[in-house]
């Protein structure tokens, strides 16, 4: 349960499938234009509820509550051996005298 005043993330649909721009490629036309933003929740609610938030700039946005206290999880990724090997190769080509 998210409380009124919590910092939350919401999701909404801006354009439904039939409302998309004419110039959009077919695969994109088959899906809606979706939007995510964050703000302070205006009433107590559960994940999946339709809610209003006040964003950082003071705008009111409506949408489905999807996360309470959202945080980032992007990372430096997995180890990429090819990248390390390429760097090693260039280093020895320049400094190690290998041809």
């Amino acid at each position, binding site marked *: 349960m998210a409380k009124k005043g919590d910092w939350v993330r919401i999701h909404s649909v801006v354009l439904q499938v039939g409302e998309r721009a004419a110039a959009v490629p077919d695969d994109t036309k088959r899906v809606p234009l979706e939007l995510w*933003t964050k703000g302070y929740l205006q009433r107590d609610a559960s994940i999946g509820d339709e809610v209003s938030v006040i964003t950082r700039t003071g705008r009111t946005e409506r949408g489905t509550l999807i996360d309470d206290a959202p945080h980032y999880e992007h990372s430096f990724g997995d180890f*990429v051996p090819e990248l390390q090997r390429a760097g090693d190769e260039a280093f020895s080509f320049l400094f190690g005298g290998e041809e």
Partner: protein
Amino acid sequence: MMPKLNSYEAVMARKGEIVKAAVGVDYSEFESGSIAFDYERMMRSTGYSFKDVMEIQRGYAIGNTPLVELKNITALVRKLAKDGFGARIFIKDEAANPSGSFKARRAATSIHHAKRMGYPGAIAATSGNYGAAVASCCAKSGLKCIVVQECYDSRKVGQPEIIEKARKCEALGAEVVQLTVGPELFYTVLRMLEDTGYFNASLYSAFGVIGIETLGWEVAHQCWEQIGKDPDMVVCTNAGGGNLTGTARGLIRAGAKTQVVAASVNLKGLHMASDTQFNKKSFTTGHTGFGMPFSTWPDRSDVPRSAARPLRYMDRYVTVSQGEVFYTTELLARLEGMERGPAGNTSLAAAISLAQELPQSATIVVQETEYTGAGKHGCAQLSFARQNGINVSLGDPKDEVPGESIVLPARPSLLHATDVDLDHMRRSLISHAASTIDHAPTDEDVAFLAAETKTNETFVLGALKQN
């Protein structure tokens, strides 16, 4: 008063009045009524002189970034080049700007102006470093800021590079609005401009592009200080065209005689507005998907007349592969001790190849770097590529197929920039321009198109005849 309709068509139909209110510029003042318009008058219309722009940037702690000689990469190039060849390579460390990229220069004049004109905030439509640049300047100016990104595909999978940029914008106080793939991002921005009364901090307004002139000007002055002459070649990563346009104008302003080369990551075959192809690419900027269309038709941007008109200044255009740019990013870290973001190294990848064509007495300047971090990093982006079914390997980068594979050069000698047929692009611009009018181009149009394509009237008339 009738309530305003918010359908896609209704909002797009009033884009002219929305943009006019949100940029404060009446673009009709520069129009001739035909193809030609007064580009230089538009560039002067901001009311800020070059000196003003420098002072504004100083106020935001932007610019005067180091010009670093890449001695080890130059040594590597000389081991690869034939005898006597291998130009000295320098890099302008634009990551040293407060928001971590040269885009800070683009934001400064806009945000200074928005503050002075009494706008309560600014909106920027960008998935790139420009968002952080606008957020940073807004923070310092006490303005509110909204950044609107194209970030996810319909599976709700986001590009790691763009998610990192969202994080940075939020860290600098901005509200970030994220969308799925599609050019209707502009529609969302127009609605927000109308609802908030904020300034449209467009990348393509004159405010945005005059800020980059300081970069070209600094490059020329730093070269005179460090090597006592003009750089022979400046390589600019090219997407929307502002980077190259502003840099070249700054070089001209400084009086430098320099060849200006554009470089983009080759994403041939990938459609930029495709939901299913969105996450098949590993670069979200600096690529041909923007570079080609924005060069051959600059007025596709979010203002009626773009200030970014790269074919006016471009002497040559080359592409490099995704694998070559990730590889170059690794070289910059491993051989020069500088860990920077991949996209900004597009022009460095090109320079490593181009330097082998020039004598050792020549100098090439790569005019930017960008910050790196989680998501915006070789390992993050290559891991993401693998998760999306892209085959990542070591080999010959000319075997790379965008959307299917990424090939890191197995040896430095395999890195090779490929020339784009610039005359073909010039003819494409001329042909498109001719298609926008229902009469024969006027003499003024022909002279304008010669300037637009850095050619002459004979070339323009020839292209029109073929059309």
